[in-house]
């Protein structure tokens, strides 16, 4: 199962400068764990204590996952995930 993950500039140090990488997992949490196996350290920048970090926004096919099931949001093949630093702590 291939999910495209778009990486923000501040996290590209973990992906050798790549703007987008592929990963797999049937939930967002599993996807981030999978990414960490190839890009060690990236998961801890996104997830803290089983939750999304406060100043990180994650979008599934452009939809804010905080309005879906957060880290437990289900993924399907071909989905696109975007990680962005939150401006204004995630609001507007």
């Amino acid at each position: 199962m291939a999910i495209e993950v778009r990486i923000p500039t501040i996290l590209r140090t973990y992906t050798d400068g790549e703007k987008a990488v592929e990963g797999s997992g049937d939930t967002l949490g599993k996807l981030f764990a999978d990414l960490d196996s190839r890009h060690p350290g990236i998961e801890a920048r996104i997830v803290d204590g089983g939750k999304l970090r406060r100043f990180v926004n994650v979008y599934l096919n452009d939809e804010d996952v905080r309005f879906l099931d957060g880290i437990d949001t289900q993924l399907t093949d071909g989905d696109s995930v975007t990680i962005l630093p939150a401006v204004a702590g995630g609001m507007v």
Partner: protein
Amino acid sequence: MRYDSSLAAVGNTPLVRLPRLSPSDDVRIWAKLEDRNPTGSVKDRPALHMIEQAEKDGRLTPGCTILEPTSGNTGISLAMAAKLKGYRIVCVMPENTSEERRQLLAMWGAEIISSPAAGGSNTAVRVAKELAAENPSWVMLYQYGNPDNAGAHYATTGPEILADLPSITHFVAGLGTTGTLMGVGRYLREHKPDVKIVAAEPRYDDLVYGLRNLDEGFVPELYDASVLTTRFSVGSADAVTRTRELLQQEGIFAGVSTGAALHAAIGVGNKALKAGESADIAFVVADGGWKYLSTGLYTAKTTEEAIATVQGQLWA
């Protein structure tokens, strides 16, 4: 339709189906053409309503100066109303907003104070608040925190959409002042508790992120997250792509924020299609494309070329 003045002709805009861009015959997308308002944008509704309410409660009296932070449309709407009603108006807008918008404001007699491009509208808001403190006699209607902004949509846009589309399942609009989503959202919820209220917010490019910091973050006072069902973040490439599709496939010439709203409308439409549900999705065409012609995005030969052309120009 006949009206007593152009101010009386605000609202009652058409709702048109998008037969080609709708995901299926059962998942229909409808465009609320707010560019058909007197000054060409949805902002005529809140601008007029905020002025009239301020007149009613005595905050705005003859000879007053109106002050407003605006990246364009609200200022244009306020300036037109101010001209007809005899108020002076001062607008604070980011220095990198398009020349068309500057000319439109000047044409209605507005005085423009430029705020630094860095921080965009957030900085314009800060500068306007400083000016308001220095000039206590000026009246700042303040679209970001004035309940009459959302009130205009609660009183007019919401009822119009429900009357035209009683089967509505989703309402989609851009997230700026949040007035449209808050006002229409609350009205629709009261009448259709299951309706989904969907925000489309512009996703800033990396370049813009580099210029911002968290201290510049700003949440409009009107914003109430409980009104929203979900939020979409739309990159400028997708917004430009949808703006061009709307023009080429449906014949609707709209601004780029409309492309972002359409992208979110198609996104929720595709989810409904996948789930085997039918849907009637209304989204807001906030303004026409006239003010953005100089970006070159409408005439670029390919969408790729259009996207490259507008990088760094949008979302001011």
